[in-house]
């Protein structure tokens, strides 16, 4: 599991059970295409891009993604989810070099 820096944001910050909220996952990742050359060394920078992402909410898979190198550096993934009780939202991704990363936050509906 990598120590890559990432962030999950839920909007609005305060929400009720049953509410549909916006979920964003952001991560510092180079998303290298393998087609760029290093300006100084002239060598090709090897490809390294996220190729799959998964959103889990209390053990249930909500959304999965197949990702290619066209996503921007430090990518952002935004979708919605229906709040369904207290628990944990986990985002897992793997990249083309086999790196795996997981980030979780607590889901705590108010009322």
């Amino acid at each position, binding site marked *: 599991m990598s120590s890559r820096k990432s962030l999950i944001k839920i909007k609005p910050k305060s929400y009720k059970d049953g509410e549909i909220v916006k979920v964003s996952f952001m991560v510092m990742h180079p998303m290298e295409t393998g087609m760029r050359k290093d300006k100084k060394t002239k060598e090709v920078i090897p490809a390294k891009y996220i190729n799959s992402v998964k959103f889990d909410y209390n053990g249930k898979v909500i959304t999965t993604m*197949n990702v290619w190198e066209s996503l921007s550096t430090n990518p952002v993934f*935004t979708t919605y989810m229906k709040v369904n009780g207290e628990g944990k939202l986990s985002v897992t991704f793997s990249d083309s070099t086999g790196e795996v990363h997981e980030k979780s936050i607590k889901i705590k509906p108010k009322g």
Partner: protein
Amino acid sequence: MQRRDFFKQLGAVAAVAAISPAISFADEAKKLSGPNDLSYKAAVDAITGGKGAEESSKVNLKVPEIAENGAVVPVTVEVESPMTDSDYVKSIHILATKNANTRCIDVHLTPSNGKAMFATRIKLGGTQDVATVVALSDGTFLTATQNVKVTIGGCG
């Protein structure tokens, strides 16, 4: 593997993925990754299993007309859908028609998303059409396209 076989296989996998987004996550990703040089038409065929997709006003594709920077182009796709167990958007695919690999991302949704929306930021190699293909739970496919002019904006 022959190129055509690869497309066939890709189509099959996409169809399976659309039925059950919860199938083995890593395997699915591995199979779909493949060589990164799918043309736009081949990619649409792969996603729709050759059926093609119909243009629809139910699909709202938001991209800038003029991108101030090709490295970070915002893309938002919203689809009109009740997102119930019997009627929902199964997947949203984003394609950059003229990038070396047209496929940017496949997003497999479930009724638990509550709303059929996905937003991200993509790299565009130059001025081109950005397209989205949307798979519905009834087995049909919708699409929307918009041109994005990529400029080198501002100073530095």
